[in-house]
């Protein structure tokens, strides 16, 4: 069997790229090692509940935006109707930073008013920042090589507001420690603050189901439990893959969403050393899903998402301790404007974790730590949040080791390596990277990247 295109990994990037390639009329095969598609954004059953993995919120909500808005442009390329996603907008989200609080919602003016009230003069700078972000987006300048921390003072004078704006942006899509690429910062700033946050009704599963249905309808194939052992080359160009079970499948092109370093491990012709390997796998997270016995709003927990940090400077870096409890993200899945409310409340609490600890701890120590850290995490939540511990009916925790096990990501680093490859090209002709190490992050970003690489390579 010979294909025009093989896609490694049925996550958001792989499914989007696979669908777009199939729509171009390419004979396309998407391979997924796991028994379920979705990758970093999937779902599973535990404790009798359907739980989402990965997804906090979708960015780029902005229902009033025109065709050129990122989400609308993406949906058009995939021929998906926006209505089919049943996007429920956030109510409001909070940024809690060392005693200060900012509220934002899907109306950018809310952030401007809040910031202006606390930091006089701030609104003007934030408006300029939004304009700069839009300019970068329209010019496709997603990576500039400049430091966001170095550029931000031109727009936000006060250090405290800078930390508060950086926090959600870094949490929702920064693979590097301490700082991020200016272009990437701007795109995520626009995606989160100006275009806003939402959740699909029913979580991530309806989106995965929609993508897999459309892939099949477009003539593409998806094979689960089909891990790729090796990318094969001929005269230095990718010509197919060997599966874990030894099966050889030939293809004109191979698109890998496994990650740059992870792909290099499957293809020795692609030198893994160099910039991309440096710093890869440093940023990982510990996440606990708490299922509550009642809607969180009944407990006085009204925010959709709470980003918090209890230190003067937001330390977005691999912590010394197994988990950094100084900062975190709390996502309350029920606090979005659904047409039909979810059957139960899911509150996820996410912290920066030290992947070395979680990857290397002996099993007994690992399991003890996996039980203990979620308890400590809840005890360390900011006082602004009502205590919901007595309402917890079930919880489950993902560590970097869990993420590595189910997604193959080095150290469970959900955002990949700091060095991105926006054009998807690798040193091996016919082998392209999509997903976390290609470019933009998050559900929307991964899909945009997958579609962009598919378009760039399929149309030539």
């Amino acid at each position, binding site marked *: 069997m010979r294909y025009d295109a093989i896609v490694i990994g049925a996550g958001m990037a792989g499914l989007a790229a696979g669908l777009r390639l199939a729509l*171009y009329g390419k004979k396309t095969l998407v391979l997924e090692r796991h028994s379920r598609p979705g990758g970093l954004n999937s779902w599973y059953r535990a404790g009798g509940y359907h739980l989402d993995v990965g997804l906090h919120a979708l960015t780029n909500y902005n229902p009033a935006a*025109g*065709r050129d808005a990122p989400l609308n442009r993406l*949906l058009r390329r995939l*021929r998906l*109707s926006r209505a089919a996603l049943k996007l429920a907008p956030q109510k409001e989200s909070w940024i809690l930073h060392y005693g200060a609080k900012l509220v934002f919602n899907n109306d950018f003016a809310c952030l401007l008013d809040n910031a202006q009230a606390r930091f006089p003069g701030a609104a003007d700078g934030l408006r300029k920042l939004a304009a700069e972000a839009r300019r970068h987006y329209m010019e496709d300048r997603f990576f500039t090589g400049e430091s966001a921390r170095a550029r931000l003072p031109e727009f936000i004078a006060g250090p405290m507001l800078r930390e508060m704006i950086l926090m959600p942006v870094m949490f929702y899509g920064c693979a590097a420690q301490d700082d991020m690429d200016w272009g990437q910062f701007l795109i995520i700033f626009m995606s989160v603050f100006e275009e806003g946050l939402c959740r699909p009704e029913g979580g991530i599963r309806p989106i995965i189901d929609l993508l897999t249905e459309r892939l099949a309808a477009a003539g593409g194939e998806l094979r689960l439990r089909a891990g790729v052992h090796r990318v094969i080359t001929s005269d230095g160009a990718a010509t197919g893959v060997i599966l874990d079970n030894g099966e050889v499948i030939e293809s004109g092109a191979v698109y890998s969403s496994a990650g740059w370093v992870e792909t290099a491990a499957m293809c020795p012709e692609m030198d893994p050393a160099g910039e991309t390997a440096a710093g890869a796998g440093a940023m990982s997270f510990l996440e606990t899903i708490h299922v509550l016995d009642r809607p969180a709003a009944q407990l006085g927990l009204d925010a959709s998402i709470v980003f918090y940090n209890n230190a003067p400077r937001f330390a977005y870096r691999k912590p010394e301790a197994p988990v950094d409890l100084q900062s975190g993200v709390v996502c309350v899945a029920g606090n979005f404007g659904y047409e039909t409310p979810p059957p139960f409340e899911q509150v996820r609490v996410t912290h920066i974790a030290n992947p070395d600890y979680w990857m290397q701890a002996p099993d007994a120590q690992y399991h003890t730590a996996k039980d203990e850290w979620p308890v400590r995490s809840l005890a360390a939540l900011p006082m602004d949040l009502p205590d919901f511990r007595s309402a917890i009916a079930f919880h489950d925790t993902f560590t970097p080791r869990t993420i590595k096990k189910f997604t193959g990501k080095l150290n469970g680093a959900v955002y990949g390596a700091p060095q991105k490859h926006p054009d998807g090209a690798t040193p091996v002709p016919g082998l392209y990277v999509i997903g976390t190490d290609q470019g933009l992050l998050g559900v929307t970003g991964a899909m945009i990247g997958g579609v962009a690489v598919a378009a760039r390579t399929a149309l030539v």
Partner: protein
Amino acid sequence: MTADGIRQAIIQIISEIAPDEDLTGINPDEPLRDQVDLDSMDFLDIVMELRKRYSIEVPEKDYPQLATMSSTVGYLLPRMESL
């Protein structure tokens, strides 16, 4: 295929490419892109679907002939009559 059949086929393709667009009441003599939010990538998709579904190649020099519904049907009729 008749002129009306071709018109239906075009509407079908556009409705799949742009599922959120309202395609009722398209004026056949007004440019499609003034009535439906289609960009150049969408346009390439229409050409590609014509090739996939009906094995019709539309060379780039002929793209201007697909500007309105009437001109599209007029252009495709001799190529699709026998289908």
